[in-house]
């Protein structure tokens, strides 16, 4: 359920703060998935801060490599402590580069692509059986839609008309080796495919927080919803945008300062 009031400036400020925090953490480790987290920052922000009913709804980061954005939001909400974040990817810590079920706030272990939507389908179905008000929010990468298992899950969610399942595709158009649009032209169109599988589907600018909120507010509530969010990998830092190297690299101290300056514009 979305809140009635939505303030775009507040959303922008939150996202800048989250990006800054991720950059801070990036200086404590050799490598971290900065760009995959930046491409879905607005998506995960509006899910947690504009859509989810605390303690009722479920969030699953199917693109587990984007989990830094989830960690910093969970830190802000007090679910994860700063001490835990300080031990990210370090001995004695429990936060790794992919989410691990059992960690506070983490509803499923992901990291291997193509698992999160199937688990989400099971969770959404269970909640429907229990006649609860729980919605399941799942964020997937576009690459995950190359996994057969994702399409098994799409088909099953359509069969079951799981209207309490809301999935977001972080469509940054980058897979590991190449742009989806170049290497896999038949990957598009996307909304048509989802609709043919029994879903409602809508395409929006994935960095436009209000468009994301509207997409979910305006859903029919009759079937599962896929929000195809067109995004930019590395969004927010010009030299990271569209550059595959930033999939898994921490900025150097100089790059860090430069990146912070760009982020700061939105913090004001």
């Amino acid at each position, binding site marked *: 359920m979305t809140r009635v009031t939505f303030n775009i400036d507040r959303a922008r400020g939150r996202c800048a703060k989250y990006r800054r925090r991720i950059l801070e953490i990036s200086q404590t480790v050799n490598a971290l998935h900065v760009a995959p987290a930046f491409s879905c920052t607005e998506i995960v922000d509006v899910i947690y801060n504009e859509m989810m009913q605390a303690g009722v709804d479920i969030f699953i980061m199917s693109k587990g490599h984007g989990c830094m954005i989830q960690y910093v939001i969970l830190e802000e909400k007090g679910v994860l402590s700063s001490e835990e974040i300080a031990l990210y990817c370090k001995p004695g810590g429990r936060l790794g580069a992919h989410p691990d*079920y*059992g960690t506070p706030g983490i*509803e*499923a*272990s992901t990291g*291997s692509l*193509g*698992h999160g*939507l*199937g*688990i*989400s*389908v*099971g*969770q*959404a*179905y*269970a*909640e429907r*059986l*229990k006649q609860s008000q729980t919605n399941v929010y799942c964020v997937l990468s576009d690459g995950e839609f190359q996994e*057969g*298992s994702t399409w*098994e*899950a799409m*088909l*099953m969610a359509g069969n*079951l008309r799981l209207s309490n399942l809301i999935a977001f595709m972080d469509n940054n158009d980058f897979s590991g080796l190449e742009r989806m649009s170049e290497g896999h032209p038949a990957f598009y169109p996307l909304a048509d495919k989802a609709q043919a599988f029994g879903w409602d589907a809508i395409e929006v600018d994935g960095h436009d927080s209000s468009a994301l909120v509207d997409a979910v507010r305006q859903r029919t509530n009759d079937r599962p919803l896929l929000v195809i969010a067109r995004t930019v990998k590395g969004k927010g830092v010009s030299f990271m945008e569209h550059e595959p190297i930033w999939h898994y690299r921490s900025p150097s101290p100089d790059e860090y300062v430069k990146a912070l300056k760009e982020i700061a514009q939105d913090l004001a």
Partner: protein
Amino acid sequence: MRNRFAETFYELGKVDPRLCMIVADISPAGSITKFRNEFPDRFINTGVSEQIMIGMAAGMAQRGLRPFAYTIATFALYRPFEFVRDDLCYQKLPVTVVGIGGGVSYSTLGATHHAQEDIAIAMSLPNMTVIAPCDPAETEAATRWCATQERGPVYLRLGKAGEPDLTSGASEPWRFGVVRRLRDGDDLCILTYGVITKTALEVAAQLEAKGMSVAVVTVPILKPLDVDGISSILSRYRRVVVIEECVRRALTVEVLALAYQVGAKAKIQAFHLQDEFIHTYGTHDDILRSHGLSAPDIVKQILAG
């Protein structure tokens, strides 16, 4: 086995609303049809889609339900293997993966339907419990245990239909985590599990006719293995024989490793499926015989050993 599993699940499902059955276009007949008719929401057919069968089961278990995922063993365990590993084992969820036609019981369907490595593979997974009942009564006991346990995922290997009763005269009951003596004897002890227990009992009877006193002990729970129970058998008997319907890297290697660890003096002979695919057809017994697993062949080798 299949029918007793279905009857037991139906009885349990009537009183426990957490129990759900997820199948991938293969269903145990009879009682599961009753379950489906009475509780249509708790019976899900994913169609020929085993990855979502396991993924959904994981999600449902995370929200407090107790799903059983059911299909032919090869498709229950091999096709969605990484989902079994990551979604069920890594997350340690109480989901029972039921593999029907485990071992080589689909004797005319060819190697695509032979789960000749299922136990070995399932045993290698952290957090996985592995159970292989030998007859309908053990199937019922195992199903009851699976429906109420809190340990995590289970691979429950069943045969097909029509398996005979082998355990009504057993001197010990089925208990989780321990081996079970079906008959006692002093000269030699056979360790076995699953449908091939029938052959093991035939072997024991034939050896008995030749003057040997032979014990038969089933190992219905392959993981966690009853290390104490097997160790005491290794120290009590001068001869121990393993008969299993799986490749060698299952009970056989566990017993050999344990014997080495405890310094057992027992002579050990193992009879198991070979490390090769099967290109012949016939009855279940015909297929087992092609890998040296017929009672007369085993008896001959034991007498020669």
